[in-house]
């Protein structure tokens, strides 16, 4: 007889090609409210109820503050008030799951914190206490001064810090932005009275922005902030020009600067190129051009010097926005023995992006990465708080995301190529290389004129 027919077993079919994308999701902006209080403080409250927490960010303009005094003020702002010690402040915050910390950069003082959403009122009360009644007690200032000196000394042992310091001096010269990182001697010289004076002069609500993001009702959160921080004193009138940071100088390309770090096993390559603010018409095109060059893992430069040559682990090229000007920094730490070849490939990739239009698929890939990154960036409370605060520093609000998205989606090949030619040309770069000068000077000098940094 004939054999029985065997029923075939169903096996999932092997997928061998990349699936397409599903429908693009709409960029959804969260519910938001904003008010500027009579004392000049602007409050932005954003609802994202994903977890029962609240993020707090207070940004205070701090341009032209003395770098060492500003750093010490940030270090000691939470060191005690008229009624509470630093330990008491920290314990009270912890009670509502909270913590606050202060940081400073060339343009701003920022107090950042978070906690359980039920503790928002208490967190704001403690913030208000610190803003209006910080004492800078002598004992605590002495402790924090010594700590800050030690932390600076550790930082000054790190190649990334040394390279950044050298690049900033090279880029900014006599501009205030040249000295972003204080020296230990400057910190040692600081006394509590100077901190109290700086606080009185600069820690004021006018021009400051408070961002609250969390499982909150925005209008109610603003009312709470007004009740608690509305009494933060205005302080005397100050002409708008008093602390204005002058525009940054144009980049002045010249010889590649070698900074000696004897016996270093890596060289830190740092290049600065011109860039434009977020609100500039060229910004979207420059973002895409930078991504194609070196701004993400699938860029030409990263694929070249990491995935093809193995010269480095984590190269990156990023636009940095400061109030008085923007710049693009190209950074890679490469093995000492391949410093020359890595610089060669870097100049080549910059030269290529500045001389020849990219391929269509490179443009689309970079565009999708840029658009996707916007969505990913606002998918958490902390991400939203950081972005809203950053935008506020440029006078922008979250709706800028929609405008920026639209610009990224629309930017053309011609615009990207024009931006690359204008901003990414290697002839416009300012270059610093930190490394073992005895081993890297000759290979670098074969590519471009060099100079040695003065100790």
């Amino acid at each position: 007889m004939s054999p029985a027919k065997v029923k075939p077993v169903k096996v999932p079919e092997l997928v061998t090609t990349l699936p397409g994308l599903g429908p693009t999701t709409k960029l959804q902006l969260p519910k938001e409210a904003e008010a500027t209080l009579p004392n000049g403080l602007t409050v932005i409250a954003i609802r994202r109820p994903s977890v029962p927490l609240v993020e707090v960010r207070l940004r205070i303009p701090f341009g032209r503050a003395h770098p060492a005094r500003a750093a010490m003020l940030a270090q000691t702002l939470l060191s005690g008030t008229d009624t509470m010690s630093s330990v008491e402040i920290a314990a009270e915050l912890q009670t509502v799951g909270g913590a606050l910390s202060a940081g400073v950069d060339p343009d701003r003082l920022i107090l950042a914190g978070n906690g359980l959403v039920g503790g928002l009122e208490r967190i704001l009360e403690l913030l208000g206490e610190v803003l209006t009644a910080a004492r800078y007690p002598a004992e605590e200032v002495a402790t924090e001064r010594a700590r800050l000196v030690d932390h600076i000394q550790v930082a000054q042992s790190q190649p990334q810090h040394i390279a950044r310091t050298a690049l900033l001096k090279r880029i900014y010269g006599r501009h205030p932005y040249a000295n972003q990182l204080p020296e230990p001697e400057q910190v040692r010289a600081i006394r509590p009275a100077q901190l109290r004076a700086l606080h009185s002069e600069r820690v004021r609500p006018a021009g400051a922005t408070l961002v609250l993001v969390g499982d909150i009702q925005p209008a109610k959160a603003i009312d709470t902030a007004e009740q608690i921080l509305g009494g933060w004193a205005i302080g005397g009138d100050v002409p708008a020009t008093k602390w204005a940071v002058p525009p940054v100088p144009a980049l002045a390309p010249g010889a590649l600067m070698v900074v000696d770090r004897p016996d270093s096993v890596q060289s830190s390559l740092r290049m600065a190129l011109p860039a434009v603010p977020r609100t500039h018409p060229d910004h979207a095109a420059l973002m895409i051009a930078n991504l194609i060059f070196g701004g993400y893992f699938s860029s030409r430069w990263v694929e070249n010097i990491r995935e093809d040559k193995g010269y480095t682990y984590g190269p990156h090229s990023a636009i940095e926005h400061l109030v008085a000007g923007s710049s693009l920094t190209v950074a890679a730490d490469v093995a000492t023995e391949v410093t020359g070849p890595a610089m060669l490939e870097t100049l080549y990739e910059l030269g290529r992006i500045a001389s020849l239009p990219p391929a269509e698929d490179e443009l689309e890939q970079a565009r999708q990465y840029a658009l996707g990154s916007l969505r990913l960036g606002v998918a958490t409370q902390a991400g939203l708080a950081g972005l809203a605060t950053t935008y506020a520093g440029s006078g922008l609000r979250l709706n800028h995301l929609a405008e920026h998205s639209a610009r990224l989606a629309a930017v053309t090949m011609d615009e990207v190529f024009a931006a690359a030619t204008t901003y990414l040309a290697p002839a416009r770069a300012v270059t610093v290389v930190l490394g073992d000068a005895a081993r890297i000077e000759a290979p670098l000098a074969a590519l471009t004129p060099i100079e040695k940094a003065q100790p």
Partner: protein
Amino acid sequence: MARRSNKIAATRYPVERLTLANGLRVVLAPDRSAPVVGVAVVYDVGIRSEPEGRTGFAHLFEHLMFQGSANLEKLAHFRHVQGSGGTFNGSTHLDYTDYFEVLPSNALERALFLEADRMRGPRLTEENLRNQVDVVKEEIRVNVLNQPYGGFPWLTLPPVMFDTFPNAHDGYGSFTDLESATVADAADFFERYYANGNAVLSVAGDFDVAEATALVERHFGSVPARPAPVRPSFDEPDLTAERRQSYTDRLAPLPAVAAAWRVPDPITDFAGYLPYVVLAEVLTDGDASRLVERLVLKDRSVTSVGGYLGFMGEPFEVRDPTALLLQAHLPPGGDTDKLLRSVDEELDRLAQDGLAAGELARTQARMVTHLLRDTDAVLSRTLRMAVLEQQRGEPGLLNQLPVLLGEVTEEQIRAAAATLRPERRATVEVIPGAAR
């Protein structure tokens, strides 16, 4: 003023678990509050599984998993993730290795395809191996050799505390071992450890469970079944006498010290382990914590002090043996002996006198904030659930952690502090070779 009440908050992420016919375990955790999705594959292999003579191999192999796969060339994985608007990475830990993507949710199927494709097989070639050996060497240079305090204490303390190769060896790897790795080694490592029976796939974020389940079947269902290898015990006897070592870091300008004590098995004795997680925070979280107040603010014997569970600082993603670590940076001329005596005094005081009013509750409140903040990120949820499934079969534990931490009692904290004795301690000290 009246004290506001803060009932311990918890999350309620739904969790679906299934196992495919080929042995792959799957965790699906939908949450549609933001249009992003996380995809992770976690393999139950890490630094401890490395064979002798192959230090750094688990991490090197992780790099090789990005160098092309069954249907994709080198560089394609990166381009497809980023070209879909997403980010990716991988990392190697003591007990597991992870690979992940975070993308806008319309790209979910792409991420599943990419992970399934390399689960079928990476493209192991001599060229890729040589290139990634170079990249890993640069990673070691930038993170360890060219930095002050490089590898301290996560690489420098285990050799003091442990005696066996799995626990004591350099997980980043010696250049000699890395350079001598072969394609055959890599193929064997894949065959042994990268079995789907040894893996968990986790998806969290904006997706429909039924649709995602169908996609998972479609892409992973036909990956050939391979069983998990037998996982050996890496346990060692606890210390019965103090161990101390020091080394000179030529780049470090200031002294540093790290100390560690064994803690209960986080998997088989989770209830006994949790008090140590809380204790580390009581000791070191913020200016109001015991050691910060004593050592930083009063004695000024350190410039910073931190405490945590696990050599890589991940209390809920580590297997036995593991430790509670304290790590401190000292001012110029800092005295390590004096510092350790002060720590002992504070531990004794805690064990004997207990906590101050409200101290435990406020520490627990802050821990809850940290947990909730972490789980707000889709990537963190995706990875944590994958590891909880891998190590415990309990991904939903992520939702319960805030409550469980809140249930730790003062008596448990005191008992835990009492076990942190000098005779059970391993300490490594950094001598500053660049002191001024």
